[in-house]
């Protein structure tokens, strides 16, 4: 039961698929695009195609990158003994803003969430294990979101990493429970790094 003809409805439907965009917002954005000048719409369209064509995921850490390996993995000044495990690439951005962390990252691609069908095998955990096999990394900081799924993911990872003789720590409390890591302000997140606690199992 589409309300508009052809391409207009197609645009609304596509926009409605975006995260956080409901039918009303989709309609509003669609009409904004319709009334915008051609040059601007062209720039938007180019940005969309370009990002898809050029940006991929770093073959080492899973972060977004324009090269095979991301800027952080290529940077020789980074501490190769320290690895921070996060759920999403946007968490890397949040942590980088604090300037507290000089190691490298591993992006899992989410948290374990069985009710949505996401188990350990659906995340980049196997890649993490392969990465840790050479013994260069001596400490892993688990910075999954401070909620139940993030906690369960941390629990699962800790259990796998401990027998490898790696120091495993979890971002310290002070991060409000139930929130998204990306919303933590720089100071809070920075403090969480300072006060990270080692996990005993």
């Amino acid at each position, binding site marked *: 039961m589409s309300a508009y003809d052809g391409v207009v409805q197609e645009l609304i439907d596509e926009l409605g698929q975006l*995260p*956080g965009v409901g039918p009303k917002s989709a309609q509003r954005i669609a009409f904004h695009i319709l009334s915008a000048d051609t040059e601007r719409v062209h720039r938007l369209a180019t940005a969309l195609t370009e990002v898809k064509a050029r940006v991929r995921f770093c073959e080492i850490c899973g972060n977004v990158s324009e090269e095979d390996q991301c800027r952080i993995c290529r940077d020789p000044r980074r501490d190769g003994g320290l690895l921070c495990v996060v759920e999403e690439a946007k968490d890397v951005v949040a942590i980088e803003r604090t300037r507290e962390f000089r190691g490298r990252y591993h992006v899992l691609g989410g948290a*374990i969430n*069985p*009710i*949505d*069908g996401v*188990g350990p095998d659906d995340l980049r955990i196997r890649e993490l294990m392969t990465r840790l096999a050479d013994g260069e990394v001596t400490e892993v900081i688990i910075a999954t979101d401070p*909620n*139940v*799924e993030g*906690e*369960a993911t941390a*629990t*699962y990872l800790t*259990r796998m990493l401990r027998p490898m003789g790696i120091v495993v720590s979890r971002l310290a409390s002070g*991060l*409000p*429970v*139930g*929130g*998204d890591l990306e*919303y*933590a*302000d720089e100071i*809070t997140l920075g403090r969480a790094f300072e006060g990270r606690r080692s996990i005993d199992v």
Partner: protein
Amino acid sequence: MGVVDRGASGTHLAAREIVLCAVVGDNGRVKLYRDEAIVLRTHKLGEADRIVTLLTRNYGQVRAVAKGVRRTSSKFGARLEPFAVIDVQLYAGRSLDVITQVDTLAPHGRALGSDYSLFTTATAMAETADRLTEVPGEPATQQYLLLAGALRALADRRHPATLVLDSYLLRALAVGGWAPSFTECARCGESGPHRAFSAPVGGAVCMGCRPPGAASPAPETFALLGALLAGEWVSAEASEEKHRREASGLVAVYTQWHLERQLRSLRHVERA
């Protein structure tokens, strides 16, 4: 606001006032209501909101919006985590209700998130409850009490997690109208014990009713299944590991057969 564990086992019924603030809208519907509830699951919505699926004590399953809870400044966020038992006030919206106030009754999320086996077990129970209470507006008080009790048993480590799960699944299905039989034949009613088990038929089957492909569990497994359904913990806990494993397999098959769509979380359950 302290964390008060008032318990959801139904012992405080007299002390509970149910429908409270009756702010009635133009159409005569109660706009603001309050109830006890269990958080079954949450979804991210937009920038900082969550859609929270609740199993309420008196109003059945409710899907509600929790605004701003993913921002770290929110005090609500921690209280609306999966498996939490809460006291919640909601505003009846046009499509989704809106959560206006939350108090924690039992913050099971902490205990369950820090043990992977308990976490996966609790998730399978929450998904089952979600499925069995899908009809909006239909009260499901028995399902609520059953889940509240099972989550508490799990968080308190009162019984082995695998037994809590299997007992919960059997009882939740029984409340939902799919009560299995572990003694009489599920088809003809002939008194047992019987040697065969068929999920489609509804449990134990006699030699005459036994369909092809029926399982032949050990007599001890049948006894364990009966104990789990009845909540007889002493005899259930006296069972052996191999019979627990066999019972879990049959319960899983029975559950997946009677719920229309597959439970996604059941295969991720880590049986300790």
